[in-house]
């Protein structure tokens, strides 16, 4: 089990991770979701002992990473697929890793075979595509047959077939009872990959739960088409609802039910052409939760759309 215990990491004036506190349990795929720059990679680096925490700590089965004698046998991690010497061959890279943790040499060929890059094992890593590098990184993570696995943005650079492969792979790792912790900024990816999701923004914990939990608690929206959208918009605003113009003649209304909207339209003599309640997707929930927590948001575009 992986435990992040009131972790804070500050780089100079920047507070990258702010009192993060959560557990990652075995047997399920746990997604670590947050916008770019929200502190996901920093958290992973601290878990792996690469960066020193400012406060708090992270432990694997109760032990700090730094104190693990042969860490590759307990934790496998893929942080940055390109973090290998470009002049070394894939096989030699893995052989060196294996030797450092007293892992049998035959295991190198096994993992190369498993991720499907045996044919380029004796080629220099510098010539690898991002997808091949990702596979090499996964091979490295699996080398010690660890119980805890960490992947930082693993689908980046993978083709659709690779994405499907890695999704099934995470699932099978979890089914074997391993702890699988996968970060991503893509909520749609997490919705299909993860069982449990931890959401952070600007280094802070936002929420945690299953995909169903997260969407169930969120407010849905209502799609409305009427004879007089402008008039209805002002009525909805007076009722403290939110309105977003999706297309020329469609409004997406939030914080009000379809009943309330229908009543209001009838009261004002507006003809309702369409009134469709919409269940929140994980994407909507994510947007709502991390609003204001986006480091580099498209503020300008949002502002234009509201006019």
């Amino acid at each position, binding site marked *: 089990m992986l435990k992040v215990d009131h972790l804070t990491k500050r780089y100079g004036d920047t507070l990258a991770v702010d009192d993060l506190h959560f557990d990652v349990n075995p047997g399920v795929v746990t997604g670590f979701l947050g916008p770019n720059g929200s502190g996901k990679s920093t958290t992973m680096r601290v878990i792996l*002992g*690469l960066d020193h925490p400012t406060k708090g700590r992270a432990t694997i089965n109760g032990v700090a990473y*730094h104190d693990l004698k042969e*860490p590759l046998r307990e934790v496998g991690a893929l942080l*940055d697929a390109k973090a*290998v*010497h470009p002049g070394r061959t894939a096989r*030699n890279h893995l052989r*060196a890793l294996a030797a*450092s943790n007293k892992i049998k040499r035959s295991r190198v060929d096994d993992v190369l075979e498993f991720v499907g890059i045996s044919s380029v094992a004796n080629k220099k890593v510098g010539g690898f595509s991002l997808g091949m590098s990702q596979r090499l990184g996964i091979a490295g993570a699996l080398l010690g047959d660890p119980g805890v696995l960490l992947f930082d943005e693993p689908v980046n650079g993978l083709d659709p077939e690779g994405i499907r492969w890695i999704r099934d792979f995470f699932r099978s790792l979890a089914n074997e009872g391993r702890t699988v912790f996968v970060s991503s900024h893509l909520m749609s990816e997490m919705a299909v990959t993860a069982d449990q999701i931890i959401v952070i923004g600007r280094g802070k914990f936002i929420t945690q739960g299953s995909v169903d939990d997260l969407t169930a608690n969120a407010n849905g929206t209502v799609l409305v088409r009427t004879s007089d959208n402008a008039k209805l918009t002002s009525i909805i605003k007076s009722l403290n609802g939110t309105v977003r113009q999706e297309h020329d003649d469609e409004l997406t209304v939030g914080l009000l039910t379809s009943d309330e909207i229908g009543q209001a339209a009838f009261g004002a003599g507006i003809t309702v052409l369409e009134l469709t309640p919409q269940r929140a997707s994980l994407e909507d929930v994510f947007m709502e939760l991390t609003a204001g927590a986006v480091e580099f948001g498209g503020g300008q575009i949002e502002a234009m759309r509201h006019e």
Partner: protein
Amino acid sequence: MSVAKSEWIKFRTVRSTIVGVFIFVFLTLGLGVLITWLIRSHWATMPIGQQLTFDPVSSSLGGTVFAEFAVGVIGALFISSEYTSGAIRTTLAAVPNRVRLILAKLFVLVVSMIIISEIVVVSTFLIGMRIFSGVVPTDSLGNGAVLRAVLLSGVYLTLLALFSFALGIILRQSIASISVFVSLLLIVPLLGFFFPQSWQNHFQKFEPINLGGSMMSVTTKPLNFAPWSAFAVLVIYVAFLLVLGMTMFSRRDA
């Protein structure tokens, strides 16, 4: 020992090490042959004063002055290339104990460089004596002072590799580390010329190149350290840089 084994695999499986060692051997041996052959062919016309103070050991090992830079590149890249490529994060994830990692790297560097250096300098010396024989006075390894000078040449080159390795830990950048290494060896001595002669007389002996000169000569030049004192001073330099590098390495985020 497992970490040392891993570092040994890493050390020998990149081209920079292979090319560096090749250039090192080529410069020491190749220039050694060229220099000794030139001395042999000009011996008859050499002024008698030079003939009397002639040192067969440092003359035959003249190529090491250039080989120093190849050795520096090997040492610096052994750690700096991990930072340049980002591989240091993969390395530290496998070996989180940073002191253990640096000690393993040091072990691999010391053992491989001392073996290579000693083989190269001893063979260069022996070949040089072969070229000299019959014309130029020669010396043999049976002479204690000669043996010391030849063997300390290999030690000097190994210490330079450690020197640049320590710079690599501190600076974390290949080009910066090699630049600083070259500057300390070549540029700092040049700066000395801006100071009065009496100052130069005091400080020149502390320059790494002059320390090396003392270590690999049979006769000690005036104003320079005696061979073993020169060795001790260079060891202090290297130890200081390594301790500084190790401290920074342990505290820093990777």
